[in-house]
């Protein structure tokens, strides 16, 4: 499954709805909310940081495997600073910086890559069955 849209704040609901619809037969309501949250945060990062609010192409690809599924986001904006992708400590209650923390909670693996042609790729993988993320020691 693959979708392409212009990465602006208005496209986020459409991407979330598309992901929700595609995964609704395999995940329960809470798992769906978690995955949709993580994908939404990753896309919001692209809108805000990669394209700096100016928009540009964003391609979302979903691949379902036997054990897990993978969501890949491709954009041609500024490369993400790997340091900025590190989730912050929850002891520091302040606005901002929670998005990458949510992504790290709801996905088992996140990779940031930059292809030779300048395309930025974020790959997020999650097993179909996994422990409740809020029970983990993150």
């Amino acid at each position, binding site marked *: 499954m693959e979708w392409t849209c212009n990465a602006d704040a208005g496209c986020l609901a459409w991407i979330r709805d598309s992901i929700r619809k595609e995964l609704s037969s395999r995940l329960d309501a809470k798992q769906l909310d978690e995955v949709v*949250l993580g994908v939404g945060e990753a896309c919001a990062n692209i809108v805000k940081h990669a394209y700096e609010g100016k928009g540009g192409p964003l391609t979302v690809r979903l691949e379902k495997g036997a054990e897990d599924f993978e969501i890949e986001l491709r954009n041609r904006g500024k490369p993400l600073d790997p340091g900025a992708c590190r989730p912050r400590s929850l002891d520091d209650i302040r606005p901002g910086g929670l998005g990458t923390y949510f992504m790290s909670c709801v996905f088992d693996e996140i990779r940031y890559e930059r292809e030779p042609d300048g395309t930025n790729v974020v790959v997020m993988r999650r097993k179909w069955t996994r422990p409740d993320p809020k029970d983990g020691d993150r």
Partner: protein
Amino acid sequence: MNIRREAREACELLTVEGDIDLSTSPSLRKHLEGILDRERTSLVIDLSSVRHMDSSGIAVLIEAERWARKHGRRLLLASLSDQVRMVLELARLQGFFSIAEDLEGALRLCRAG
């Protein structure tokens, strides 16, 4: 996102419906700034009809809670939807906010002062 605002006994009630995300959280922030600046001491936000809230929505709520504390106002989150509850649990923020199980409970707390 739709926002409905009503003056209730001893508090202002804000009912939020739909999605609170990057595109809509600035509007929520504007509403909260307008309300928290007024005389009433308490603000109740009914979140029962919020389908999706992301980190930008949480950021707005954290700012509002901080502002309310600093200026002697009370902010109560009421009747959280399952998605909002999940997000607050994930961020471990349940203890940071005052949360009422339902709207009636929140309004009762306001009347009690």
